[in-house]
Structure formats: structure tokens, C-alpha cells
């Protein structure tokens, strides 16, 4: 790797914190600290995936059915948004390293923007799930209860009755899923899948929000001239480590949750169009 800052004078490197002996020690310690934190995150999400895998071993067909009800279009677009944001945050490190304040601020803002769009699409996805009624709970476990629900809806077509099993059937039919409820999958098992879906993507969203907060803070710091000392690029690098990790989690979330069940590319495009309001919004 070449470095093009060989001619930068020492004085622009920046002050060393009082409890460290030199800048190298400070950098090495900060890097180690962030990697140690990322290990806790590996264990955190890892444990969630262990739980997911345990049930997927027991209920493979039900998990595929559940996955077929998810919006793969939004997820695909989100994947690329996160990748581009990983790129911009890496470019931001370079800007801080060479002392390019404008470039640094621009790249940090781009990263924040891409992350925000990701969250926006995610919010839309959750909203669509809500509208489609894919909220676990209030399951009609007996035939009688199911009949009550149907009767209530027949009386009042606008009535929003949360019946997960019924709603799931409708969504899967719309998505072209071939399985038959009761034979190929058990809708109440699919509720388990959906708890994982909301739980894991929810935790991912939480980590994104924290990341966006940190990015905003660094944008403010950059505007205040904090990164004019070139040695402080380490803090952009540390933040980028966190951001890349969040991206890495998404790389596993995508195949495990979204692409686990049958989807087609055309379907994904339709779903994305629906999400941004261009779709035909065909009735359920």
C-alpha cells in the first residue's frame, strides 16, 4: 500500500491523550478496544442466530413459508444501500487521513444519508407488514374462534381483525407460494419465524440508529475542525469498523430471513415498486 502523506510534518499529527505515552500506543489501544466491542456484537447476534437455527432445524417448511411472506424487494435494495454506505465510510477514513475536511464531511453525510434511506425503507416494510396484518398473536386456535373472526369481518368489511393465520394465507397466495396451510406448513409455527424476523431485524435497526447517531456526531466534530489533526483519522476508522460490522450482520440476515423461502426476481421488483408507491397495489 502506498501512502501519499510522507511529506506531512509531525506537528500536524495531533495531541496524545494524557495517559498514553505515544500516538502509536493510543491508536493501537483504540483499535483493540473497538475490536473487543465488536466481538461482543458477534456473540450478541450469534446467539440470536443460534436460536433461529434451532427452530429452523425443527420447522424447515414453516420457516420457508414465513420467508416467502417477506418483502424481498426492499431487502435487496437495502443490501446495496448498505454496501454503498460501507464504501463511503471507508472513503471518509482516507479523507481524514490526508486531512481533506470537505471530503470527510461529504462522505460522512453520504453514509448517514444512505443509512437513513435504509431505515426509511425498513419503516415502510414494517408498515406494509402491519397493513397486511402479519403481526403474530391473537391467533384463532379453534375452529369456533376462526368462524367468529370471519363472521365479524363479513359484518364489517373495514374491521381490522388481527388473525395472523388468515393474513398469512392471503399474503402467501399473493406471493405465489405453493404450499398448503396445514399440510405443507403450520401457520402457528410461522409465527415463530415472524418473531425472529421482527426481533433480528429490529435489533439490526437499533444498531443502525446508534450508528447514525455516531456518524452525526462525527459530522459535527468534523465541521468543528476536530479532524484537522490527521492522527484523529483513527476515530473515523473505529466508527467504520462498527458500521462495517452492521453491514456484515445484514449479509447474514438476508439469506437467512429473506431468501430462505422461494422468491423470484420479478416478485421482488413488484414488491419494491409497491413499497415506493409505484406498484399496482393489487388487492388482497
Amino acid at each position, binding site marked *: 500500500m502506498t501512502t501519499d502523506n510522507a511529506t506531512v510534518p509531525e506537528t500536524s499529527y495531533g495531541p496524545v491523550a494524557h495517559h498514553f505515552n505515544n500516538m502509536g500506543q493510543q491508536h493501537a489501544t483504540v483499535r483493540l478496544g473497538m475490536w473487543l466491542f465488536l466481538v461482543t456484537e458477534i456473540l450478541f447476534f450469534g446467539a440470536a442466530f443460534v436460536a433461529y437455527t434451532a*427452530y429452523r432445524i425443527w420447522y424447515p417448511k414453516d420457516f420457508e413459508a414465513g420467508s416467502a411472506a417477506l418483502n424481498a424487494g426492499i431487502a435487496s435494495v437495502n443490501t446495496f444501500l448498505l454496501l454503498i454506505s460501507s464504501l463511503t465510510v471507508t472513503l471518509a477514513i482516507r479523507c481524514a487521513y490526508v486531512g481533506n475536511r470537505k471530503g470527510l464531511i461529504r462522505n460522512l453525510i453520504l453514509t448517514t444519508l444512505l443509512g437513513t434511506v435504509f431505515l426509511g425503507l425498513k419503516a415502510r416494510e414494517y408498515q406494509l407488514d402491519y397493513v397486511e396484518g402479519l403481526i403474530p398473536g391473537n391467533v384463532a386456535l379453534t375452529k369456533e374462534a376462526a368462524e367468529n373472526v370471519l363472521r365479524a369481518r363479513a359484518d364489517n368489511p373495514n374491521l381490522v381483525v388481527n388473525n395472523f393465520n388468515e393474513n398469512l394465507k392471503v399474503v402467501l397466495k399473493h406471493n405465489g407460494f405453493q404450499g398448503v396451510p396445514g399440510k405443507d406448513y403450520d401457520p402457528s409455527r410461522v409465527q415463530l419465524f415472524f418473531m425472529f424476523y*421482527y426481533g433480528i431485524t429490529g435489533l439490526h435497526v437499533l444498531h443502525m440508529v446508534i450508528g447514525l447517531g455516531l456518524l452525526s456526531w462525527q459530522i459535527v466534530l468534523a465541521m468543528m475542525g476536530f479532524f484537522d489533526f490527521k492522527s484523529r483519522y483513527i476515530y473515523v476508522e473505529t466508527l467504520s469498523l462498527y458500521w462495517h460490522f452492521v453491514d456484515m450482520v445484514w449479509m447474514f440476515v438476508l439469506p437467512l430471513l429473506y431468501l430462505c423461502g422461494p422468491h423470484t426476481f420479478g416478485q421482488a421488483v413488484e414488491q419494491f415498486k409497491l413499497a415506493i408507491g409505484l406498484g399496482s397495489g393489487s388487492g388482497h
Partner: protein
Amino acid sequence: MTATETQTETIRVATTTPGPLDYTPQMVPPPEPTDAEDATRKNYLNYDYSLFGWLFTLDHKRIALMYLAAVSVFFLFGAIAAGLIRTNLITPTGAILELDQYNKAFTAHGTIMLFLFLIPVIPGVLGNFLIPLMVGAKDMAFPKLNLASFYVWFFGALFFVYQLLVGGLDTGWTLYPPYSSKYSHTNVLYAGLGIFITGFSSILTAINIIATVHKMRCPGMTWGRLPLFVWAMYATSIIQLLGTPVLAVTVVMLAIERLFGVGIFDPSIGGDPLLFQHMFWFYSHPAVYIMILPGMGVINEVLTCFSRKNIFGYKAVAWSSVGIALVGFLVWGHHMFLAGQGYYLSMVFALLTMLVAVPSAIKVFNWTATLYGGVITFSAPMIFALGFILLFTVGGLTGLFLGTLGSDIHLHDTYFVIAHFHYTMVGGMMFAWQAGLHFWWPKITGRLYSDFWSRLAAIVMLVGFALTFLPQFVVGYLGMPRRYPNYPPEFQIYNVLSTAAAYVQGLGYAMPIFYLTASLFFGKKAGNNPYRATGLEWQTNSPPEPHNFPETPTVYFQPYEYGVKDGLSVVEKLNSGTKSDGAQTKTVGATSDH
């Protein structure tokens, strides 16, 4: 130069002229400051008296004191809960509590003692205070993170205790669903949130300790020269780092199930309550090693100092700490032998449980070998340490009965389990904490406490503790289940015995409050190294100055250089008379008895 100093100069030959900090412990430290100097000397306690300076301090020593204060208060709450439990068990039908109150009492006792006392106490107090001193650094690697870690823990703990007080928690500290998620009418959600928040503190402290030990050691302080306390804290931090996130995600999942009424442990939709147990115990078993390893680290320091001997098998002890940390992650299923876990996996866990006992046994053998041939002083820290070895060994051995599949069928969920973990946690960890507190009290406060009262308290605690839990082994074996407020009348004698001894034990815990506080006002000034102990922390002032050392020390000596030639004569010389400047020469942390 006195005769002592000339003599010891022949022991160690330094390659350069020793500077003020480059001396071995056998050489006499610089003369103690006179009172005039002392009055103007700034230490970490008196350089700043403002509240702001305490609440927003970045000094690891002040943070350690804040932990000490908070942990002591929470210990008191846990002890009160214990008192309620034991008093209630005097009669077979429950003496003072209703059934649901009893459930809340033992849950409160368990959660407070584990999360708010045993896990944070030594890392937060002694770890924070001593690790930078022991490695020769000015502070921890991340001082602001250290302060944040304290506040996160403190406010999480306050929140948690508040939830216990306004509605209680009656699920047991293990929070098993479906009771905790579906049927309990108590504050499971908020209590779980409190535990989640305090878990962050564990993780942040661990990050700090690992980074400090890796990156902040002073010149000459190689891994092989680190005090074994630092090795133990390092191993503890590894466990905290790897284990706590799993507890976090487990509590989150439980909270989701509690909040939304649908969850992943719910059998009615195909969920598995045993999955919670897998995830819970993946953390909670290593958690018990988080609790005991720091205690073992303290014992290394105390034993070597008060038997004036080098530790037997430094490498074995150091690596066994890491071994406990790593193998401790492989045994969690032994809590679930009777819960429906698959038989093949249970066999694997039982085998691995036998394996995890080995590093602990290695330590006990090494400690015993350290004591052999040493010049033993029965000071208070030493009594606690010896008690630790005895009680922890008993606790550890009884764990083997529980780890064996066959005997566990009989003993699971009985008082045998309770006695086992109290022997290791209280007889082990609590005694180690007392040993550490008493050993380093002169360093932390600069004062010596009463030798007589501290030894008496140690014996009272020892006797009280042993008599409290010994009957519980018997009654557990006879079949009394744990967490039951009612029991068959034939068990009453054991319960009454246990309760009576528990009061004695409580008296023992109360005693240090008095003589340690008294030492702050009436105790003799300790000087740098009242015990003539090795280790960098004893080569600087008591209490230490704000940045720990006047200049960065350089380490030329191996750890625990007690047993070198003329070491005994140094001790004898020091005990026989006064130095030329008339300073105190007794090696034990003793004041004149009052």
C-alpha cells in the same frame, strides 16, 4: 544507609544505578515522608474536594471507591433478603412471609447478590483500583469509558432495585419461561431491562481491562512478571466479553415475549422453553467463573505475602485461570440435565464438567504447595484466604456430585445445590473479597485497621458461614427442595441450625463496617508498604498520588520475590527492632490494639 540496606544490596545486582522506583522489595523503600511533607503531599483523595471532582472523575481509583460504596449498599439489600429467607424457614410452614413474598425474597436475594454484588465487586473495586497500579500505568486504557461503565451499572442497578421494591420479581434469578413470560404478575419486563443495562457495564469494564493489560504495561513488565491477580482479571474479562452479550439477547427475547404475548419460547406455537435455558446458561455458567476468578486472583497475592514465599507454579496458576475461562464455556448444560435436554448432549456436558474442575484443582494444589515451608502470619487477609481454600475446595468437590448424571437426578433442585454454590460463592468469592479488601485497605486509604477486630471478624464469618451451609448439604441430600417455603417437619432442626448460624454470619459481615470506618479516623498511617509485599502497587505511596507513580516505573524483578536469600533475615530484622529513623517495622497490618 542502614545495615539492612547494605545487606540487601548484595541480593540483586541491577545493571544500572537503581532509581527511586527501581528497587526490589527486599531493599528498603525510600524513607517515609515526615508529617510536614505528608501534610502537603497530594494523593488521589485530597487533591480535590469538590463534588464535581468526584462525580465526573476520570481517575480509576476514585471510580473504584464509588463502586465500593454502591456495591456495599446493594450487598446490604441482598443480605436483608437473605435474612428474610432464613428467618422464614425457621418453621416448616413459613414463619414471617406469605408464599408469594417468599418467592420475591429469594429472587431478590439471588439477583442482587449475583448481578449487583458478586459480578461487579472485585472487577469494579479492586480491578479498577489495582490494575493500572500493578502494570505501572497512569490510568486505565479508556478512563471516560470507565466512568461511563460505573454510571451505567449504577443507574441500571438502581432501576432494577426499584423494580424489586415496587412489585418484586418472583421468577427466581433464573427467569425461566413460560412462568416469567406468561404467568408471572411481577415486573419481569422492567427487571429484565435493569439486568440488561447492568450487563453493559460488565462488557465495558472487560474491554477496559483487556486493553489496559495488553497495551499499557510499563517497561519491563512482561506477561511473565504480571501479578497473578492481573492474570485472573484478564481471564475474567475474557469471560465477561464473550458471555454477557448472550445474556443480553436472551433477556431481550424474554422481554419481547412478555411484552407482546407471543414469543419464541412459547410451546403453544411450537417454541421450546429449553431454548431459553440453553441461552441463559451459556452466559450464567461462565458468570460463576466471572465471580470466582477475581477472588482466586486475590488469594494468590495474599497467600504469597503472608507466607513470605513465591507462588508455587506461577505458569500453572496463570494458565489455569485462562483454562477456567475457556473451558467454563463448555459446560453450561449441566444445569439442564433434568430439563429435557437430549441424553447424548448431557453426557458430553457431564464429561466436560469433570474437565473444568481440573484447572481449579491445579490452583488449590499450587496454593497448598505455596503455603508449605512458608513463614505464615495469621493476619485477617490470611485467615480469609485460608478459609477460601478450605471452603472453595469443599464447594468445588460437591459440584462434582452435581455434575454426575446419576447423582444429579437425586440432588438437582435440592438444598444440596444451594449449599454447593454458597460454599463456592460465599465461602469462596465473598471471603476472597474480604481478603482483598483487608489486604489492600492500607493502600487504598493509607490507614491501618485493628488487627484484633479484623481477625475476630474473619473467624466469626468463617464459623458462621460454615455452620449456615453445612446443614444444608445434609438436608438437601435428604430431599428438601430448594425455593420451597414449606418443608416436612423432620427437616426443621437443620433449618433452625442454619438460620441461627446465618445470624452469626451476618454479625461477621457487619463487623468490618465498624473497624474499617474507625481506621479512617483513628488508624495509624500505613506508609507505602506495611506488609513488605511485592508488586508495583506497594512501591508507591499510600494512598497513591493522582497519576499513580511519580515517574513511569521500570520493572527488573520477577513477581513474588519473597523467598530469596536473606529474605527471612530481612523479615526478622524488620520484626526485631526499629529502623534508624524510628519508623514502624512490624510487617503485619497491625496498629496498637485498642
